[in-house]
Structure formats: C-alpha cells, structure tokens
C-alpha cells in the first residue's frame, strides 16, 4: 500500500499520463468506442431495426460493416448492441461494486464474526464459475428478462468486490494515521468514507476495470447461450450468436461484431494495465 496521503482518487497528473502509454492508449481507445456507442443511443446511420431487400451486402461505403440476413445495417446494429452490452455491464458493475464495497468496507473495518463469515462465504462463492452462479440465480428468478440478467450478474460480482475492499480496509484499519484520526474523535463512518476510501481507489479502480470486462464477457456468454438479451433488442453477445448461423454467407457480421467487442475489452484492459503501472506494480 502506498503511503496514506490524501491524494485525489484519480490523482494522475500530466507527467504521469505522459509516461503511462498503456493508460493513454486505453483511455483513447475506450473513449472513441464509448463516444460512438453514446451517439448510438441517439442517432445511428440507419434505423437499426429497419429491414430492407439489400441482404448480405459485404462492407461498402454505404454500409461500412455490411448488412445482415434481414438487410439491416450491421454498423447501426453494432452501435446499438454495444450500447446494450455497455449498459448491462455498467448496471452489473454498479450493483456488484456498491454491494461489494459496502459489505467489504464494513466487515473489513470492524472485523469480528461478520468478517470471518464473509471471508468463508466469499471463498466458497469465488470458487464457483461466475456463469454457473449467474445461471443458477437466473433460473431461480426466471430466464428471458433483461432485469433478471442484470440482477443475477450483479449479485455474482458482489463477492469479488467485497473481497478486494475488505482486504484494503483491514489493512488500513491498522495504520497509525487511521488510528490517530479515530483518537481525534472522527466517527467510524467518516473514517471509512473520507479517510480510507480515497486511498483504496487505485485498487478499486483496477478491480473495476477487470470487473467491467468480466461483466461484458458474462453478458455476451449468457446472451450467446440464449438466456440473456432477447430480440428485437440486440447485445453484442446475442448478435454474435446470430452471426454464427450466417457465418458461411456473411463472415463480416461475426467478425465486425466480435471485433468491436474485442476492441472494447482491449481498451478497458489497457486502462487496467495502466492503472497497475501507476501503482508501481512491476510489469
């Protein structure tokens, strides 16, 4: 753990950015993709659901990713599909991270029996393949609804975040600085929120990037299995499963959809890499 200075959680100054190529490249790549995705919420080159007689057009000037089996513009669909995947991953992370951080902070800070139980349960849960756990939850909730997908994935991500946060808080609890703040009369809540949380930010940010990528992958896998997003909504995972059935005729469908997904994950992965470099981890 770095020294407990009150650094801004995003405290990367210009100097650092300049030298941290991974972070820069990751932010740039993710930024461009996120911008295109954001635009996709309001505007797409074509109506992503509009069908036309121009089926299976290979990529060309009018349709840069070509068209699919209904003559829909794949680029427009990818923009929208990426939006769906992005939103689902984001909601998943919001649920998983907020649940996990609260749980981890409280148990890590106070310790005791609850902490002990959490460690055991967490260990058991992280032994489960994430998809298996999500499938179990979704089978209890009932498949076929996006809300249930988000809930099940969100729940699955809680233990991972709780684990990371707990470790950071348990460590911070023992540091003199925190002890002295406590002696000065700061409340527990204030210590946890103001004094410890900013210092766990680097660890958490890195966990967030990994979690985000896992959420995107999990959503894609579930949709690919047919238990996630359902048409006419499209997510990248669902589109990939559609693309597989026409791969022989229109390989560009699978390649462009898969390519966008890979770039997305690649960009976020680079940010994570950059954060770890900044943390001074040996790479």
């Amino acid at each position, binding site marked *: 753990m770095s020294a407990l200075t009150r650094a801004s959680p995003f405290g990367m100054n210009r100097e650092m950015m300049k030298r941290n190529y991974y972070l820069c490249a990751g932010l740039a790549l993710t930024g461009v993709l996120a911008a295109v995705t954001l635009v996709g919420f309001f505007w797409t080159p074509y109506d992503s659901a509009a069908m036309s007689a121009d089926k299976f057009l290979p990529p060309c000037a009018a349709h840069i990713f070509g068209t699919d089996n209904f003559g829909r513009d794949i680029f427009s669909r990818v923009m929208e599909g990426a939006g769906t995947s992005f939103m689902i991953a984001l909601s998943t992370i919001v649920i998983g991270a907020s649940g996990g951080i609260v749980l981890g902070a409280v148990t890590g800070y106070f310790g005791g029996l609850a902490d002990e139980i959490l460690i055991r349960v967490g260990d058991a849960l992280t032994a489960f393949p*994430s998809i298996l756990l999500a499938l179990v939850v979704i089978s209890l909730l009932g*498949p076929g609804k996006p809300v249930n997908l988000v809930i099940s994935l969100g729940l699955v991500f809680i233990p991972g975040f709780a684990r990371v946060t707990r470790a950071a808080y348990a460590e911070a609890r023992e540091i003199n600085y925190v002890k002295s703040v406590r002696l000065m009369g700061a409340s527990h809540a204030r210590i946890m929120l103001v004094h410890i949380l900013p210092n766990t930010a680097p660890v958490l940010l890195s966990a967030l990037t990994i979690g985000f990528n896992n959420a995107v992958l999990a959503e894609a896998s579930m949709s*690919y299995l047919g238990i996630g997003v359902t048409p006419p909504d499209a997510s990248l995972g669902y589109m990939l499963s559609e693309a597989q059935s026409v791969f022989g005729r229109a390989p560009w469908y699978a390649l462009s959809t898969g390519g966008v997904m890979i770039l997305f*994950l690649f960009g976020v992965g680079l940010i994570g890499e950059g954060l770890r470099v900044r943390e001074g981890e040996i*790479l």
Partner: protein
Amino acid sequence: MKYAFRRLSALLLTMLIVSLCTFAAFSGISGSAAEARLGTQATPERVAALREELGLNRPFAVRYAEWLSGFATGNLGDSLTYRQNVGELLRDKVLVSLLLSGMSFALIVLCSIPLSLLVVRWAGTSLDVAHTLWNQFCMSVPPFFTGLLLSWVFGVALHWFTPGAFPGLSRTGEALHFLLFPAVAIAIPRIAMTVRMLRGTLLRELNRDYVRTAISRGSDRNSVLRRHVLKNALTPAVAFLAQMMAEIVAGVIVVEQVFGIPGLGRMLVVSISNRDYPVVQAIVVILAFWVVASNTAADLINVRIDPRLALRDE
C-alpha cells in the same frame, strides 16, 4: 498428513454447504415447477398426488439426506423432462465436460510456463510493450468467439475435425483430437493471464536480494532463474492456476455450445429453461465439486513444495 486431513475435511464441509444451499434453493421451486407441468389439468387432487409421487411431502432433512446419498449411490432422482434417472442421464456428459476442462488446464500449464520464462527476459525492452499489448489482446478475446473462428477454419474449411459430430468417449483418440480445438479456444485468454501473472511473480523474485547476491557473486543468471526463482514462484503459480479452474469451467459451459459437444453445458442451459431442477442442481453440485476439488489439490501440492504453508493458517 495432518494438513492434508484438514484440507480434505474442509473440502467436505464446503461441499456440504454448497449442496445444502443448492438443494434448499431449488427444492422450494421444483415443487411448483412440477405443478406447472400439470398445466390446465391441475386440480387439487392431482397436485396432491404429484407431490406425493415426487416425495415432496416428506421432511426437508430426509429429502436432502436422500439426495445427498444419491451422489454415492448414483440415484439422484428422475429428470422431469426425460423421465430418466439423473445419474444415468449425466454420466457420460460429466466425463466429457471434465475431460475438456482438464485438457484446457493442461494446455494452459504447458504453454504458459515456457512463455513466461521467455517474456521475463524482455522486461524493460521494447519487446516488452509489444508483449503486453498482445497479452492484453489475447485476454480480450471471448472463448466462444475464438471457438467460432476455430470451428469454421479448422472444421468447415480445412476438415481437420468435424464440429457437431463429437465421436463419443469410447473412441478416445478421436475424442481427444476433437476436444483439442475447444480446449485451445478456452485456453488462449487464460494462458495470457497466467503468463502475465507468472511474469510479475518472476520479476518480483528476481529483484530479491538473494538473486542479486547470487548473480553478483558470478552465478549464471539462467541457472539462478531455473533453480531458485522458478521454484519460489511456483507456489503462487499453483494457487493461481487452481483458481483458474472456476473460469475454465465457465468457459466449458459456453464453448461446448459452439462446437456442439454433448457435455454438461448444453444440458444445464436446456434444463434451466425447462425448469428441470433435479438435473440443474445435480450439475451445479458436480461442477462446484470439480472446482473445489482442484483448489484442494493445489493446496496439497503447494504444501509438498513448501511445507511452511501448512503452518500458516494454523
């Protein structure tokens, strides 16, 4: 020995908890699912008869104990959809899925150790950046996408194997040949992860004083690397690899669909949709056991490598 005993009893305890949770979660709804099956013909009498037939009127503890002993005797109840014994239904599928996950695991171990020894030499050079980028890229490729490409290129275009026509375990050679392709699809991102992890561990180890001393004393860098560094990096690596088993199993569930492999993945997805809970809970417990067992095995191996570990969580 004492440590092994402790680890094994912990394994049993974990599995008891996992199976209890699974059984409790599903037993509540499997009754209603069975009733839903009666559909329009559901009358109170028929529902009562069905509950009796499925044995749902007996105490929870009795049903749980009976189900649990089923893992030993093979009698796990009947599938609601297939009206066939769950054990019989799953036997071959379990072997296929476990074999696939085992092969993926072997590939990861075989590829990542030499690769990480290679890349550790690149630290600080321009190759290092290229490697990091490539590594990140490999981690970003979803296994089912790789699987899709592999099956079209090697299956449909080159005819090296026949996707969708799994030869069955009785033809072992062909089955292994077939499973190699999905195993590669599952392994690629995990190899990248393992290489990154090993590289970090090796570098940290190389920066330690004893290594510096040894090298400054004139020992050959390579032999230090192989004799001491690798050995010390081994225990975290084994633990890391064991933890990876959970993710491998997740990959297996999805990738089986791409290649049309008749394993537990397809069965699990279909059973969830059909609310065939006897099958779902059996599959969940089997896969969980596989993951927990490999973690335990890793711990036991680690204690052989470094006996001090046995004392750590006394």
